[in-house]
């Protein structure tokens, strides 16, 4: 796909660049990079065809941040003063390498670049050789291919064709919206320095657009949901539990900010009991949810961990649904927390719902719900209400299974799903068992953060080198981190108030 662009743009670009190189610029380049940038800028403005523009942009793109510099140095003359070897060498390298990587950025690169220093090293990189340029070219396709979801090769080919279309569209787009580059172009240029800039974005968007929010939604949400359902199931009011759960999604999906108006009868009394527990409790639970991934008997949980680790940007949805389903803490916590769990239940199928609830509240809610859920287990016999627990519990497991299949990148048999579900089931049951036993071992009836920490230590997640706080910092998004680790914010109160 680069070829057809190259065929059109390359000669022109080459010609222009040659022209630039040959012309002796009268203006003395105050800055080394500006000369080169100016040349590129001239190239940008001279060609009238869009292809040319794209080609130049490509070349500019190749300079990673060079494109940014182009806009800024637009008014500078073409770098006739090519005495500096760097720009000329760079330009020559561009000529050499332009055909190979002609993939264009969708956003126009014509932006004033504040950091010329960035341009300089990037140019130097390009000057080092075409090899470097080639390598990154190969990488993105493979990474992209790897990043694509499980679909078969055929789908991957389709995606590439889609990508081609998008590339075509991207060119005109970039022409039309010169001013849109901004951060996007900067970031994209940063990411795609010498490689195919357009490809990753266009390919990523259709394939994975809806995935990240889903992934976020599952991790803690599902776990909390499961635990909560466990506790709910064990609660005497099994039926009443079912109805709130069923109604939650519909109610809370649209009403993000509305407090969880249907506190679960069985849960509320026990829940309030645990309200005083500070965030660290929740943290432990949240951490535990993440800790699961590393040591799960089922691979799905492992993928979970990967997901958690990868998704540094937390979609609060996941937490929010959890919080709302857990609800119990609505009285104390902000109302928005309520929205979480039912949203989470639906989040699996729905698109990410814009969450209005503040993440900290959600995290607190989710964490607190986790603790009361697990704490109530030792008290109540598990025999009662196993069926109502089963449905929502399985719903939560299903989400994990979907994650697992997503990361497997290949189609999975139904039996495999069943096995994964079995493993997850056993894993979580064992987990709750352990927590219960740990609490009892310390002569308590409540699961406390220390129990969770002990569990994670046994799992090998927490060692003498790695403490819980380290894990929190590593894997939780910023909003939750703020909750769990007291940070002093200028002008704000410190959370959590221990």
């Amino acid at each position, binding site marked *: 796909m680069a070829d057809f662009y190259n065929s059109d743009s390359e000669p022109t670009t080459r010609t222009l660049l040659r022209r630039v190189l040959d012309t002796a610029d009268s203006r003395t380049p105050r800055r080394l990079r500006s000369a080169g940038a100016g040349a590129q800028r001239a190239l940008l403005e001279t060609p009238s065809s869009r292809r040319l523009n794209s080609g130049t942009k490509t070349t500019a793109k190749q300079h990673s941040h060079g494109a940014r510099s182009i806009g800024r140095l637009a008014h500078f003359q073409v770098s006739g003063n090519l005495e500096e070897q760097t720009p000329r060498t760079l330009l020559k390298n561009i000529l050499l390498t332009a055909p190979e990587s002609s993939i264009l950025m969708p956003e126009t690169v014509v932006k004033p670049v504040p950091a010329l220093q960035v341009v300089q090293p990037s140019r130097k990189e390009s000057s080092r050789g075409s090899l470097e340029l080639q390598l990154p070219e190969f990488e993105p396709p493979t990474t992209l291919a790897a990043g694509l979801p499980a679909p078969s090769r055929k789908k991957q080919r389709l995606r590439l064709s889609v990508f081609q279309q998008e590339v075509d569209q991207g060119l005109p787009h970039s022409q039309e919206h010169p001013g849109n580059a901004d951060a996007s172009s900067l970031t994209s240029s940063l990411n795609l320095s010498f490689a195919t800039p357009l490809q990753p974005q266009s390919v990523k968007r259709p394939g994975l657009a809806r995935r990240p929010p889903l992934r976020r939604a599952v991790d803690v949400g599902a776990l909390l949901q499961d635990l909560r359902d466990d506790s709910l199931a064990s609660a005497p009011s099994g039926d009443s539990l079912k109805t709130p759960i069923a109604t939650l999604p519909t109610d809370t999906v649209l009403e993000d900010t509305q407090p969880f108006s249907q506190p679960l009868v069985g849960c509320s009394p026990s829940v309030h009991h645990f309200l005083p527990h500070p965030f660290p409790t929740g943290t432990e639970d949240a951490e535990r949810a993440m800790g699961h991934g590393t040591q799960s008997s089922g691979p799905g949980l492992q993928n979970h961990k990967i997901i958690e680790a990868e998704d540094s940007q937390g979609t609060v949805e996941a937490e929010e649904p959890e919080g709302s389903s857990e609800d119990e803490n609505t009285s104390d916590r902000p109302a928005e927390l309520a929205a979480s769990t039912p949203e989470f239940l639906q989040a699996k199928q729905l698109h990410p719902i814009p969450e209005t609830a503040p993440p900290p509240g959600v995290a607190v809610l989710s964490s607190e719900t986790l603790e009361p859920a697990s704490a109530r287990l030792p008290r109540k016999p598990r025999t009662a209400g196993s069926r109502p627990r089963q449905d929502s519990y399985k719903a939560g497991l299903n989400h994990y299974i979907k994650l697992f299949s997503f990361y497997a990148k290949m189609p999975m048999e139904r039996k495999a799903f069943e096995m994964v579900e079995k493993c997850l089931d056993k894993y979580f049951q064992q987990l709750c068992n352990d927590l219960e*036993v*740990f609490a009892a*071992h*310390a*002569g308590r009836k409540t699961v406390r953060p*220390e*129990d969770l920490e*002990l569990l994670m*230590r*046994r799992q090998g997640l927490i060692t003498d080198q790695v403490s819980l706080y380290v894990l929190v910092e590593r894997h939780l998004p910023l909003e939750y981190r703020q909750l769990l680790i007291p940070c002093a914010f200028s002008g704000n109160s410190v959370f959590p108030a221990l």
Partner: protein
Amino acid sequence: MFVEGKEALNPAQKRLKAAVHYTVGRLCEEVALDKEMQFSKQTIAAISELTFRQCENFAKDLEMFARHAKRSTINTEDVKLLARRSNSLLKYITEKSDEIAQCNLERKARKKKKSEDGNKSSRETAEAEAVDSED
């Protein structure tokens, strides 16, 4: 690969490891005679290495459990917590611990009845504690 790890230990640990290896060898011999199947040397070495490392893990876990219960002494409860994974093992250990506790009680009662002397009772309690700590 089968002889690894001994170099990093101090002499006491090396002796301990050798003792474990010897014991494992004897046990494997018995099993071999019983099942009429031979054990290769590497197998025995692997088992003994495994046992040794697992004992290290056990010790750390026991310490963690004791600390979790805010105690400075490892208790039978800690050991039971450690063995809860395997049901049969847990049952066995529970039975054993009950036996031992019962023995201790009996011994205590007997000896207290026999001697009203403070010295003797203190000695017995010390023995009982020692026995308990052995559990």
